[in-house]
């Protein structure tokens, strides 16, 4: 019975959490702009509307375009199954750090190909930019996860995220540094504000939106949902890092841990909304500088983890 309940909650959170995360960001931004804004569940309605519409695709395209969004979506679903982004997952598969990072690369590679399929210059230029960004941010993501791996002595995220943290200063510091690095690099990976403006309407400045410019109808619904799910996965990992920095977190039971986890994800979404209202999009040439700071965070976290290991 409890197993069934676990399953149900997990499936529900896979469906609902991405939507709520996106909704929270939009609502926060609207409130900060003195608007009432759409309801938090608006992304659901959008998805339903999109799935009722027909698709229009470019006559230049071959099958790669539709296949790419399909496979990217399936891949993100597999990642949701694989990574411990929620602490109440009904089963815990072996999720290796490097495998997770390369599965994210799988989704990205298909998105890039899909954007090149139409022969549109917009899609291609944004693909080229996305490839550049991914080059810069991939070491940051990997090192953030590796720093946790080094500290807890395993390359398995399942082991890392079920570790009972001790009451030491270094534990908390590494959790927080890694969490910050994961969170900020997720902003780059998800094409959020300081790097890319998700609400922009000028094709020349878009990155992610220009890549999916040709998508419509159900195809677009898949892409949008995959993107939101990817966001929840990243925020889930980051929020768990922040929560586990407090040693008290381990003493709670599964339900309150899960509740805190969800609150953490939505809290990060709130923070993103706040951030996007306060700061402006960086000039394209300044983006590497921003990512360099994220990489520094990961670097500090991993060097601290190594240092802690040496001193121990």
């Amino acid at each position: 019975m409890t197993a069934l309940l676990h399953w149900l909650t997990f499936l529900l959170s896979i469906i609902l959490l991405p939507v709520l995360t996106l909704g929270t960001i939009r609502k926060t931004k609207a409130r900060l702009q003195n608007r009432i804004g759409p309801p938090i569940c608006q992304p659901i309605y959008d998805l339903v509307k999109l799935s009722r519409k027909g698709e229009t695709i470019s006559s230049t395209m071959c099958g790669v375009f539709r296949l790419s969004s399909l496979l990217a979506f399936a891949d993100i679903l597999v990642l949701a199954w694989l990574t411990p982004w929620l602490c109440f997952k009904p089963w815990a598969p072996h999720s290796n750090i490097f495998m997770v990072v390369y599965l994210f690369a799988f989704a990205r590679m298909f998105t890039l190909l899909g954007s090149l399929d139409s022969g549109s210059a917009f899609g291609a230029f944004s693909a080229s930019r996305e490839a550049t960004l991914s080059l810069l941010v991939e070491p940051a993501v990997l090192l953030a996860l590796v720093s946790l791996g080094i500290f807890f002595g395993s390359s398995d995220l399942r082991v890392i995220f079920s570790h009972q943290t001790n009451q030491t200063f270094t534990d908390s510091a590494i959790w927080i540094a890694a969490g910050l690095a994961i969170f900020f690099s997720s902003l780059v990976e998800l094409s959020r504000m300081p790097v890319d403006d998700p609400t922009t309407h000028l094709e020349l400045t878009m990155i992610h939106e220009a890549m999916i410019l040709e998508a419509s109808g159900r195809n677009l619904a898949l892409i949008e949902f995959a993107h939101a799910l990817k966001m929840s996965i990243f925020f889930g990992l980051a929020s768990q890092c922040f929560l586990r920095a407090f040693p008290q977190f381990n003493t709670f039971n599964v339900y309150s841990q899960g509740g805190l986890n969800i609150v953490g994800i939505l809290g990060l979404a709130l923070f993103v909304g706040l951030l996007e209202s306060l700061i402006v999009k960086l000039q394209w040439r300044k983006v590497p500088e921003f990512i360099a700071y994220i990489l520094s965070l990961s670097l500090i976290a991993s060097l601290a983890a190594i240092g802690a290991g040496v001193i121990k």
Partner: protein
Amino acid sequence: MQIQDMATFEMLAVLLGFLSLALFFGHRKHLKPAIPAALTFLASLAAMAWLILTWGHNFHWQTQAPFLLGVFPLTFEVDGLTRLFLLLLSTLTCAVSVFSPSYISHIAAKTHAGQYWICFWLFIVSMYAVVSSADAITFLVAWELMSLASIALVATDHSHQSVQKSAFIYLGATRVASAFLAGGFLWMHSITGSWTFHDWTFCIESTYIPAFLILIGFCIKSGIWPFHIWLPYAHPSAPASVSAIMSGFMIKVSVYALIRILVFGALNSLWIIAIAFALSVISTFWGVLFALVQNDLKKLLAYSSIENIGLVVMAIALSLYARAHSLPTIADLAIIAAVFHSWNHGLLKCLLFLSAGAVDAQAHTRDLRSLGGLAKRMPWTMAFFFTGSFAICSIPPLNGFSSKWLLYESFFQNILLSPTAIEKGLSLAVICLLSAVGALAIAVFVKAMGVGFLGVARSKSAQRAQEAGVGILVAQAALVILCVASGANSEFVCRLIAQSLTSSGLKVSYTISNGLPTGTVAILLSMLAASIYMIFLKTSKVTKYRTWDCGFGSLTEKTQVSADSFAQPLARIFRPFLRYQNSAKFEGADRRHFPEEVTVETQIISILENRVYLPALALFGGLAKLLSRLQAGSIHLYLLYVCATLCLLLILGMTL
């Protein structure tokens, strides 16, 4: 009959068979390619069957009296490690021989068929020989044969100036490599008094210099930075069937030999390991960086080979290091990673070169600037090329990932287990670099796939391309199946490699308790994708319309992204390494708003070639000019030389 006699007999049979084939085919300029290809296929199949049937047995042959080389017998040995590499070779030759008939007919006008096939056979037989040789003499003889045959194959289309240049550069590289190897081997012989690889160990200080010579020799031949110059010349010039074998197997022969000689010989000099490590790290990065800015599809693949060989040598260096510091788990992981990655890269590079060959044969160009839109005309080739690209970008669940993961994991374990902070930090830096290289590789292959196959054709010849012949497709399909299978069963392959290495004398155990769930991920991924497609996407109503053009209309093939412009943002970041220059010129009365003519030029200068190799060559050229004064053409002068030398020798002989 004894096994020795049998082996001798077989050698005789192979030699006779070869001679008769040479006599029969050698002089024919025009030849139906199906016959020699079928012969190659059957022979490779027989070799593969033999290798699989006798799995687990070690063979040791020594040639008897009439078949000696001077006073030395030729010694061959087939053990676990050899078997793994020979199996790869026979698989690749099978695929290539299926590929060849329809491919060769496309380039028939430019080639002398008999010459091509004789060189091809010689090339393959010599590779079998070099991998199974057990002593230095046999190795060197087979190695020279292999090098010379491959040079002849690179020069197949020798009417072109560029091909001649490539063959000469390659010739030079192989000569230098052989010189280093011969020096190292002779030195080792004088130290140990034996030609057999089994007797060579590199644990004492006097063996370090020969070890270094051997390392450099193999680095040159496998295309490690800074000796990689020949590779991007030789691979594009050779026919696709040859470059597939060259990149798929020939550069792995050096890897095999490094493992056989240095790893089995337990090299423990930190300096040499550090040099190998540094060179491999640089070539990984360098290879992928230059691959990014290439426009020739085969040149791009050649640079990607440099990257992957760098990864393999990196794994070997890590394994040597860990063994020298008695960290056996890491040493085992790394050596398995090296062998596994050689296997994977062999399969993948062969597949990709065959695809590139198919594109070349059908679209009559390999230049990404005039390709495009092949997806609709060559869907199967596209599918195979895409799978290969995904695998070589090490995307799970394909095989490229499994071996790269082993490499990652061994560096990760090195962080956990190695005693000092400096080593931990270095391993961390390498992990960081590997992930950046991985992301760059993705950019490289997305460029190759997206610009080469997707969008609209950029030239007339690409527009007229047709799907390649059945043989070409079957060969690629077989390789794709192998890639997917070995990716999904990576656990099994790793155990197999560990077992083979152990049986050939290096104690290796595969100790990962819970391996990667690649198989599960593959099944889950395909099931999810299929079900979503059936439920959600298949029923969707699809209308076709123009690509979004902002309402301006008139999108042409010129408005698409070009190979150069796709790589530009990344290349800009690495300007200092690439010497990348992008200049744009606008002309016309109102240049700012309505330019009449826009010219954009991208330029990359290879510092290594212009600053190091060309001056060095010029120096050697000058020295050679000095020496050539000796050659005056007068017989009297030559007689004087002979006389003078004789006198000198006599005087020396008397005084000593």
